[in-house]
């Protein structure tokens, strides 16, 4: 995956840590939302917090921004303690918050003008509005925007001050698949222009395709952290290759390294194993002139890892 190779280089070159969290705790009365979170985020990466609803992801990022006062633990964001220097910190960060809104009658242009505080930010207004495709919505009231348009406005607002860190909480929830993919491209662009992105999501696919590193959050704790491909490698689940090839005995495939099992089901063949199973199988088949057109690989995903680590389904 070229994207993760590039990001690996990036984090190696600039390993400056911009977010340090040790033993973060947050409770509301007797209800404990965050039990014990440890994490490090390096400058310039897209760092994902992946977990089911209610895992404590939102509370964690709100504590990182000083929007909620933590109950315990140590947090430094850009070297600042959010509970002490919240205002100073928020001048250098941007945020798209979950379940937040603007007044229904506030127009897009007014919102941008209201949030642009410095002269430089005001000069950027037009360019940012154009770039995020909301220039044409300038006079539209917030209440009349579609879900996707609202998200784009929120991203534009989050980026007005050219933040060093951008927090995006459930950015694509409620968007259709097409808007979701478009939004992912926009998030990559934020990162490519130098900002660090902390992305909160409960979509496994979003974390896998978009994040340089992912922390899996469950019940107020981080249960695993790493590059998506590393995390997937940690699963015990097998990889599967399936294809259709009539009237052939392909049991010899089980002699390939990493192959555990070859099973036939009518004309269908399923090869099960670990590691570089797919490439080896494909190469061996091609070598013998067997070229099925429906060759498919089935990888374990972060969902499988989540299931293994917590015993529960990510979607539950």
């Amino acid at each position, binding site marked *: 995956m070229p994207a993760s190779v590039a990001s690996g280089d990036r984090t190696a070159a600039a390993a400056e840590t911009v977010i340090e969290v040790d033993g973060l705790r947050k409770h509301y009365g007797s209800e404990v939302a965050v039990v014990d979170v440890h994490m490090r985020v390096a400058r310039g990466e897209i760092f994902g917090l992946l977990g089911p609803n209610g895992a404590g992801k939102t509370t964690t990022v709100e504590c990182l921004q000083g*929007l909620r006062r933590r109950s315990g633990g140590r947090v430094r964001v850009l070297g600042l303690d959010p509970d002490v220097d919240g205002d100073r910190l928020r001048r250098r960060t941007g945020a798209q918050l979950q379940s937040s809104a603007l007044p229904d*009658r506030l127009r897009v242009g007014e919102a941008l003008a209201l*949030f642009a505080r410095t002269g430089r930010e005001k000069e950027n207004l037009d360019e940012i509005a154009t770039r995020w495709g909301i220039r044409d919505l300038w006079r539209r009231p917030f209440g009349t925007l579609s879900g996707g348009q609202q998200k784009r406005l929120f991203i534009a607002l989050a980026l007005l001050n050219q933040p060093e860190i951008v927090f995006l909480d459930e950015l694509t929830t409620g968007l259709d698949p097409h808007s979701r993919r478009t939004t992912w491209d926009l998030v990559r662009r934020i990162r490519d222009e130098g900002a660090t992105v902390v992305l909160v999501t409960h979509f496994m696919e979003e974390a896998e395709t978009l994040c340089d590193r992912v922390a899996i959050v469950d019940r107020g704790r981080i249960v695993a952290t790493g590059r998506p491909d590393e995390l997937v490698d940690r699963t015990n689940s097998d990889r599967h290759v399936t294809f259709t090839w009539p009237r052939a005995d392909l049991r010899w495939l089980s002699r390939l390294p990493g192959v555990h099992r070859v099973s036939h089901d009518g004309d269908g063949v399923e090869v099960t194993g670990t590691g570089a199973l797919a490439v080896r199988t494909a190469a061996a088949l091609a070598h013998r002139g067997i070229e099925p057109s429906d060759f498919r690989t089935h990888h374990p995903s972060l969902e499988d890892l989540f299931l293994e680590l917590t015993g529960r389904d990510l979607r539950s």
Partner: protein
Amino acid sequence: MFGKLAWTETKLSIREPTVAVFALAFPLILLYLLLNSFGTQPDADFSGVNTADYYVPAYMAGTVAALGLIAIPVHLAAYRERGVLRRLRASGISPGAVLVAQILVSAQIASVAAIVMLALGQTSYELSAPASWMTLVGGMVLTTVTFCAIGVALSSVLHTARAAQAIGLLLFFAMFFISGGGPPKEILPDGAALIADALPLSYAVDVLQQAWWKGGWHATGVAVQIGLLIAAAGVAINRLRYV
């Protein structure tokens, strides 16, 4: 920066005027009815002044109470409920600035109401000029700040706009009719007079009526309002630090 926020809030209040219209129109319509029902002669039941001199300052205070007890809590509770305050705060606009902007909007509406009442009274109902403009304006400012602070405190303990509206209306009507918007104090039954003494609006009415009739500060009225202001601000600051 703050100016822009206040201007934006003003524009929004004009675009979404229902609550402001209620706060403006309800006291004005009632005042108009009362002024037409009673004569323009001074009357012992009205502290020895005429109907207009009695009711205009009381209704100015009443308008401020409607803004403070209904408009402010509904607006702020809705902002909190929908995450507007958090949204603003994440971008460096503090909830405090939003509150102050909202109080300025209320002050503008209260000023419009006061001017309309003054004009109505003086052109048609023999309303006398206030004995001290300074004390009257000062009293209006104090009343506005106090009732807005009470409204902010209310919004900080009520979590939804619907709750804020229900509680706000209840408090407003209870205060309004006992504290000077209904029968004058002189003819209130003893029990109601006791309740009147416990209601914040009575003290606001005292301050404005005294400013109008005699020109001096109503010491008790001022002291009680300042006490309420401090208490309400304390509650609000304590509860709204994290939204």
